[in-house]
């Protein structure tokens, strides 16, 4: 399946910012600082199991369900 990483990133950002668009940017920065280059992934990016696991871990740390 392609595009899963982008979808996961978007879910994390949406849930974490809870409608507050002003903090969307800082949430993306937090994900980048954790080692996931968010801008590298599109809807047609191949899935990378390592990154997917990293995002699952990030979601868990942020107490988010994706």
């Amino acid at each position: 399946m392609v595009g899963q990483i982008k979808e996961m990133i978007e879910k994390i950002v949406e849930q974490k910012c809870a409608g507050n668009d002003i903090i969307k940017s800082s949430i993306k920065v937090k994900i980048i600082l954790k080692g996931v280059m968010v801008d590298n992934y599109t809807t047609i990016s191949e899935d990378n199991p390592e990154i997917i696991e990293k995002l699952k871990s990030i979601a868990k740390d942020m107490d988010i369900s994706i």
Partner: protein
Amino acid sequence: MAIKTAYSSNKNEKEAVIELKQKIYDNNNKLIIFFASSSFNQKKLNSEMLKAFPRTTIIGCSTAGELVSSKMLVNSIVAMSISKDIVDDVKAVLVDNIKEQNNVKKAFLALEKYYNIKMGEMDPAKHVGIILTDGLSGAEEKLMETIGDLTNITFIGGAAGDDLKFKQTFVYLDGISYSNTAVLAVMHVPKGFDVIKTQSFDVLKKKLVVTKADEKNRQVLEFNNKPAVEEYARQLGIKSDKIADVFMHNPVGLMAEKEPYVRSPQKVLDTKICFYCNIKEGSDLFILASRDIVKDTKKAVETKLKAINGCEGMINFHCILRTLELNQKKQSKKYAKIFEKIPMIGFSTYGEEYVGHINQTSTILVFKRIG
């Protein structure tokens, strides 16, 4: 005045604090922030501050140099009092044993109890946190990461210094100094605040993908699947044995939302490069080239003040590497002059905190006008 600042270069702790009190004491004070050279007796200094300001929350830390409106100082103390008109509530807590443990959650429980709000639910427009950490702990990343996981409010601050001795740094809370500790102070700022993050670099089109890293020890082993030193040098077109000479002017940046989050190389260790901050494996870094710190900072400050119609005051967490570069280029006075009409204190840090732990940056907390 809602914010007052002062400084003293008096070597006697008691006399220095008397000088500060004369300039910044006010019955309306809600918070005192001070930054002090490690040349002072930290215990004595803090004790005197508590005597001088007994009914106010007092936070601060030791430094590698101090800043106040129109001056860059050494061996001095700078202090700021903030009135209830700007910060109408504040709670400061300690995070202890930061080298060995991660006690952010425990500290956050105390903040939540005080404010009666979950940290995850605090309004990021009206609450801001200051973080001051032991600058020799190596714990800044894990603290900032956990803070970022648990709350959306901005935490901004710096790592304490010790005048480049690299022996022991201190953070301060309510009259006591601590090492291996961080201070978190969450403020309610009803009239609002803003942040300036400024770093003076051009981003070069020279990409270094971190293909192998020892994250815990802040070391990169390989860039682009080649030994780190060799690849860094190759990208810059210089010999490997020369790269340490260019570290200050050519650090690397992690690009996030079109801005570099600077990662400064510290030293070479065989074929590895040690950094002043954590580098995650898989990160895309870009080599940076330094620009004029004074020009860029002046522009950043003026742009921000224009956008928010002035301010009541600023706190400047300013990297020691920037201070050293300014000294080297004899630009310290010009840098200080940027802030001459702004109530400002700050210090030369061993690292800056804003979203994460960063280097060679000024992260500045700006208190908006109250009327």
